[in-house]
């Protein structure tokens, strides 16, 4: 039965594993070059000059390949699951060959078990190999992008999980719908929905987020409005910049007082009447979690107005007898043993070891050469 | 070696047709003592009929004492058709020819003669059955 499963599956397997080999060759050729660049520009940047410039220059290398690989690792597990999972049983049901297959000397249970097992294993193997290759190739990039949790979905073992999910969905759809094309279409839709649901509605609740309080920093708090797929500011307001916590998944950043009340526009207007007069000074801060940000070049005077306002708000909301303003950050810090020194040196206790387990493949720790950014952090 | 054929429209069951054809062959001298009948496999290959049919026919012929099966070799004719009625053939044939002449003189064409003969034959036979 195993031999026959391989025979039925042979062409597809050869095509896919052949493609994987091509990808492997491309990565093997370009990979060492990237590492070399890293070692010469980014690793030594502290010694001579601006590290953030070195970072962004480095990240521009092979940018197209980076994007292509990201797309590949996101898409391939799903595609494999759809093309290998859906026709597994549906193909036989559709063409009537099940009447031939189930009347030989193999019971139906064994037939199904072998097919599911063999092809399922192949699917996860493809995803695993691809992920392995891409993770290896991207390790210099990931080291530079330390604060980027977004790559969680396409590194290490996560694509394997998605491949298994897509395959299982495909096989199930095939059995229920009994026709290959409708099964493939259904699997595609269900898989995409599942991924979206997992990322936005399941994952945030898997563990309790760590709640951090940080002081408002006038130098990096901006002013403007933002809108993302999932939230918007509904008008101009103060926007704190996202703190740099390596590999942390920051789910939200807000301004609130000690009691947890948010900063209202009325309070802002009363505290800083001069703000917003020139059509909204843009921020010096960086964008929020994945949002589009209205920034515009403003005069030095407007910037001063903003900084004064933030300092004022921060003071009024801070300490004293009244409410204090803090910048709570909900995040999932991902810990890697070697990363500790890099983040937030004042309070080493910042990283309670709460969070998803560290990924299977570790890159060797190499301390990053420049200090963390301007936000002071206080454990809340 | 003789060859069998099957008349699917005669209404006679296949095994009986085989029996009849063997008897006919014996009568007409196509089969003599010691001749081998076609093997079951040969008959099946030629006629695409159930091998049991052939076996049954050969068994009946064996019962009638006309053939004998030699296991592993085949089925062979044991004696020529010493039909005592063979002697009566000559005079019967002459009677028939006279009758035929009479029927033609009465104006019957070939078809009518055949129909008359068949009908009389059948009713005479069924009187024996019923």
């Amino acid at each position: 039965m195993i031999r026959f499963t391989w025979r039925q599956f042979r062409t597809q397997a050869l095509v896919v594993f052949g493609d994987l080999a091509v990808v492997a060759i491309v990565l093997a050729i370009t990979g060492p070059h990237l590492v070399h660049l890293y070692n010469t520009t980014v690793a030594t940047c502290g010694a001579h000059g601006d590290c953030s410039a070195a970072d962004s220059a480095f990240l521009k290398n092979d940018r197209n390949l980076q994007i292509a690989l990201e797309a590949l690792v996101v898409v391939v597990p799903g595609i494999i699951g759809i093309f290998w999972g859906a026709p597994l049983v549906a193909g036989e049901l559709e063409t009537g060959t099940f009447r031939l297959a189930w009347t030989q000397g193999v019971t139906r249970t064994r037939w199904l078990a072998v097919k599911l097992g063999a092809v399922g294993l192949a699917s996860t193997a493809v995803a695993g190999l691809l992920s392995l290759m891409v993770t290896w190739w991207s390790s210099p990039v990931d080291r530079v992008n330390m604060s980027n949790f977004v790559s969680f979905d396409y590194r290490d073992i996560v694509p394997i999980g998605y491949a298994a999910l897509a395959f299982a969905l495909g096989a199930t759809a095939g059995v229920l719908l009994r026709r290959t094309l409708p099964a493939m279409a259904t699997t595609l839709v269900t898989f995409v929905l599942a991924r979206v649901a997992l990322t936005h509605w399941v994952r945030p609740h898997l563990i309790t987020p760590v709640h951090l309080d940080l002081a408002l920093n006038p130098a990096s708090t901006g002013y403007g409005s933002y809108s993302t797929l999932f939230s918007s500011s509904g008008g101009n307001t103060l926007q704190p910049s996202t703190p740099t916590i390596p590999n942390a998944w920051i789910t939200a950043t807000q301004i609130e007082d000690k009691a947890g009340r948010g900063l209202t526009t009325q309070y802002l207007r009363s505290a800083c009447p001069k703000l917003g007069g020139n059509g909204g000074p843009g921020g010096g801060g960086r964008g929020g979690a994945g949002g589009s940000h209205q920034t515009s070049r403003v005069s030095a005077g407007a910037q001063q107005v903003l900084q004064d306002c933030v300092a004022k708000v921060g003071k009024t909301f801070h300490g004293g007898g009244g409410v204090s303003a803090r910048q709570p950050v909900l995040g999932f810090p991902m810990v890697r043993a070697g990363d500790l020194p890099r983040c937030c040196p004042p309070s080493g206790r910042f990283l309670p070891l709460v969070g998803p387990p560290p990924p299977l493949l570790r890159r060797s720790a190499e301390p990053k050469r420049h200090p963390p950014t301007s936000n002071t952090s206080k454990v809340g | 070696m003789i060859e069998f054929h099957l008349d699917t429209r005669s209404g006679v069951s296949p095994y009986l047709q085989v029996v009849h054809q063997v008897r006919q062959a014996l009568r007409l001298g196509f089969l003599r003592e010691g001749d081998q009948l076609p093997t079951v496999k040969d008959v099946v290959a030629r006629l695409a009929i159930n091998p049991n049919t052939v076996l049954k026919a050969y068994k009946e012929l064996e019962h009638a004492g006309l053939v004998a099966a030699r296991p592993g070799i085949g089925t062979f004719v044991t004696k020529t058709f010493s039909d005592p009625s063979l002697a009566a053939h000559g005079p019967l044939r002459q009677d028939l020819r006279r009758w035929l002449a009479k029927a033609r003189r009465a104006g019957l064409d070939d078809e009518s003669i055949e129909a008359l003969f068949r009908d009389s034959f059948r009713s005479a036979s069924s009187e024996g059955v019923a």
Partner: protein
Amino acid sequence: MTAVLEASGLGKRYGRRWALAECTLAIPPGHVVGLVGPNGAGKTTLLQLAVGLLVPTSGTIEVLGARPAESSAQLGRVGYVAQEAPTYAGLSVADHLHFGAWLNPGWDNHMAEHRIEQLGLDPNQRARKLSGGQRAQLALTLAIAKRPELLILDEPVASLDPLARREFLRDLMQAVAEHDLSVVLSSHLVADLERVCDYLIVLCASRVQVTGEVEELLATHHRLTGARRDPSTLPAGQEVVEASHTDVQSTLLVRSDTPILDPSWDVEQVSMEDLVLAYMSQANNAERGRQSSLSALR
């Protein structure tokens, strides 16, 4: 002798319709069994129940003394060719033989290759390029080469041209002669079955109408022609299957174990086709009667 197929009260229902109902059979071994009936009568359903592709809604069925498809051993003893002889379109003839070898414990590869050679099939040709007759022969090869005790064929020659049909039946009969197989084959053409079957099952309106050895059925069924008469006046032991009357004449098809001695009847033999047709029209009449009594109740 244990029956090759034994069914007791077997039934299969889809929604509200019974595709097969109250089917009770005991097919003796060593026969070529013809399962005959009109389309939609339940022949395919019965055969699929026999090979385990369907599960009964009611009653039981046992094939070669075991539940169909319950184990690898049982599956190896039954060969099956479904309607239209499904094959893997993209695989070659040789691949199909490998399929048979890998999936069947009792596979006789020498016989399979010999048969393919005799049939003149190119081992490297894809199944989708074969003609209907060639595909049927390939499917038959796969079923025979696993050395089963029982062969079940669902309308194997329905879509074949006359020559292909004759060749298929000839090969089948040769296999029966060589390997002492029992065969159950279904058809809606009686003429095919007359030359190969020695056991008959007539299935009509989802029910078994008559079963038995062909010789016995032909010996016990007679056509009676005579003056117009009420069928109920016949003595017991003479069961009327079909009756038709004109104003002066009656023609009856009767089943009787004892010879019919009444001189007022013209007694004739019936052909298998007449016998089957008579039972089928009886079944249709019964079904119509059942439907009208049901609608009368509503």
